[in-house]
């Protein structure tokens, strides 16, 4: 059920929550955390939808904080809080309160959110767009144990990563980091299977995708070897190549779904590495609420210490793939690539319009389900 409250306060919202719960007959709830989503009208729908889906795994109270921009100076001096309270079937498996803040109160959002937090339960703050430069220092961010940003949604992702590294506090995490968990786990599994030392690494992926940098920094941080970041047409990450003393290990994905793992002396194997939806990323974020030290360490390695973007086609070709299959493009192509429409450049992603994401501005925060 939905309860609309206009020009309201936190205590009225609390009353509406209790009333809503009683009305649907479930006064006791097993919600495990409070999720605060900070967003704008443009992204609110998608962010809330992702949170609802994630709440299937983590029943939570979701507080959506939307700061509204008033047009006239007169309106900006007024202060108003509107709320939409949703419980039961309208709110995934938990409760949702959408808070719209006008005027002065939008600078004091924490005063609205604080009384609405679940007792004792952990608080996670997620900026679906426009994350503050220093999340832990933000008044809303200070309420959370866990602060989730998404540098993919930023205008300049690489700059964003540098800012994250500077302001990092335990509890910070980024959805661009969650996006590479399947890659990391596959690479770790690959190294489990061979007994040799990694000499150098190359990570290739589309431009302006911070996940590629994060993966490269993680590998550099763990392996202590030179890691190059190469640009390809995407979608997303396309290839990781580990040069080892026993031969090259490559994990290659051209279509955003199926990857091929090649190990020295072993047959090629197909592995499913599907790009995941925001709700799945969020569910992964909510699974562990302790500080992610591995992320911190990778982040602090620093984007600047990665090997410069190099032309992939100048490297000796590996025996495991043919050049025609590989969408890694030389760097002088990249400006031309970016100008092309999504998906047109990568042959394998034809027909998958929503997986060839050229610029962050065109990137919808919620990935729609697999078109098949």
């Amino acid at each position, binding site marked *: 059920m939905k309860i609309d409250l206009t020009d309201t306060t936190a205590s009225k919202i609390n009353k509406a929550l209790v009333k809503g719960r009683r009305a649907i007959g479930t006064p006791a709830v097993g919600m495990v955390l409070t999720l605060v989503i900070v967003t704008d009208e443009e992204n609110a729908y998608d962010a809330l939808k992702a949170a609802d889906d994630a709440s299937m795994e983590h029943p939570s109270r979701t507080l959506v904080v939307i700061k509204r921009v008033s047009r006239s100076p007169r309106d900006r001096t007024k202060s108003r809080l509107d709320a939409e309270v949703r419980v039961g079937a309208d709110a995934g498996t938990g409760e949702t309160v959408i808070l719209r803040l006008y005027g002065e109160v939008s600078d004091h959002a924490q005063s609205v959110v604080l009384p609405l937090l679940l007792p004792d339960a952990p608080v996670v703050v997620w900026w679906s767009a426009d994350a503050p430069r220093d999340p832990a220092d933000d008044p809303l961010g200070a309420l959370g144990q866990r602060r989730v940003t998404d540098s993919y949604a930023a205008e300049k992702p690489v700059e964003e990563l540098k800012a994250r590294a500077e302001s990092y506090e335990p509890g910070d995490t980024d959805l661009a980091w969650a996006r590479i968990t399947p890659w990391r786990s596959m690479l770790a599994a690959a190294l489990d299977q061979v007994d040799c030392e990694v000499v150098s690494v190359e990570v290739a992926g589309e431009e302006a995708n911070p996940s590629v940098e994060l993966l490269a920094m993680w590998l550099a941080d763990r392996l202590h070897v030179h890691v190059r970041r190469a640009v390809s047409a995407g979608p997303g990450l396309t290839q990781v190549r580990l040069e080892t003393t026993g031969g090259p290990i490559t994990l290659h994905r051209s279509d955003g779904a199926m990857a091929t793992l090649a190990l020295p002396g072993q047959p090629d194997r197909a592995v499913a590495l599907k790009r995941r939806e925001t709700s799945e990323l969020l569910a992964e974020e909510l699974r562990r609420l302790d500080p992610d*030290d591995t992320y911190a360490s990778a982040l602090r390695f620093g984007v600047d210490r990665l090997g410069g973007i190099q032309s992939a086609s100048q490297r000796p070709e590996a025996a495991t793939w043919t050049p025609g299959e590989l969408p890694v493009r030389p760097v002088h192509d990249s400006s031309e690539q970016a100008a092309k429409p999504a998906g047109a450049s990568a042959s394998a992603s034809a027909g998958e319009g929503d997986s060839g994401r050229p610029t962050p501005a065109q990137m919808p925060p919620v990935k729609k389900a697999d078109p098949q």
Partner: protein
Amino acid sequence: MSSSNPLRDPADRRLPRIAGPSGLVIFGVTGDLSRKKLMPAVYDLANRGLLPPGFSLVGFARREWENEDFAQEVHDAVKEHARTPFREEVWQQLVQGMRFVQGTFDDDDAFERLRDTIGELDKAQGTGGNFAFYLSVPPSAFPVVIQQLKKHGLADQTGGSWRRAVIEKPFGHDLKSAEDLNTTVEEVFAPDQVFRIDHYLGKETVQNILALRFANQMFEPIWNRSYVDHVQITMAEDIGIGGRAGYYDGIGAARDVIQNHLLQLMALTAMEEPASFDADALAAEKTKVLGAVRLPADLGANTVRGQYAEGWQGGEKAVGYLQEDGIDPKSKTDTYAAIKVEVDNRRWAGVPFYLRTGKRLGRRVTEIAVVFQRAPHSPFDHTATEELGQNAIVFRVQPDEGITVRFGSKVPGTSMEIRDVSMDFAYGESFTESSPEAYERLILDVLLGDSNLFPRTEEVELSWKILDPIEEYWDKHGKPAQYQSGTWGPVEADEMLERDGRSWRRP
């Protein structure tokens, strides 16, 4: 292989435990268990990214199938029964490693073909010679299959690879046969490479018994004879024997359920804190509890067995056990069994554990209820506490997994009246949908070689030592009591608890 993989870091909690290169061979792949549980579990594991690249699934059965037919069968089973959504790319990863070997268990050629298939998979899929053999076959076929595996060199571990055997209940039908079975299996596979599936142990709620007891402070202090009155462990089914007459008749409820599931649940409920959570420490504590179990002197008064009679179960007419197809009308097989046992140690002396199981009971439910003593003194007068029962902590194992705490609370109003209320923790409420199926966890553990959740030889043998005297007594005395289908068992079982001044919970 290399223990010093620089990409592995214990602090990196996001990376899941992925099994190393390996494959699974299922004998009896056309059976119900395989279609409804094993194949979907394999798919769900793959979908969660927990299977190694190149994971291979080999089916072995009599049916005349090609690899494609087998893949189609798995495809249908997965679509129908898998927990997680169907994804084409995950399926494409799996299907490359699917093979089918046609043959009977005594067919030497078929086992040669199986060996060739495994060799071929090692080359094509890089399984590295690591294979688990899942024996989803009738107990009579166990020795044949095991011997065939030995004869054709399929159980040989060479060059750092492993071969494991996964076996399903029943683990024999008495101590003697269980020992024989263990000898047969362990003569071919090393004891630590034999995994006995008790699917209850793979359930989240069952593992949660340990978390609740040993990770919290508020339960363990009252987990003993000073506070606990008795413990009831129930596993009820609403269905009859269905088409399993051949298997069930002569085995019965006690051997089918009490010997493995209920005694394992009891061991987890009653055991002392293990020194660590590794397999050896856990097994040591469970073994100690099972070894401390004492049967009552008068088995006639403290055990009950029954057979379901005609009746109505949940709105459907049900035939009695003796009228089922393929059952001898004079059969003495029990479809209901209730026993009382005690655990002779300092913690539990004098606290009875009541175990009951049955078919065609009120509803399908498995639970462990720890019932506490009444408060030693009540400042409230008798009328105020008339409706107050005993406090209880109930682990609901299935369905609706969760934990219930029952305690008294004042009824709102002007007079003092205290009544029982339930406080519920439902898994479905706090961790919706994330609970993996038991078989997923167990298959993954087999591939990882993690034997925490698998009963060991000693546990199986100790369990038979508990049940054998009861079965012997039943053989010689009386016959099963009849109970109407759809009820909570024979009146004799109610009388058994009444004599102790207690009553069964209605689960």
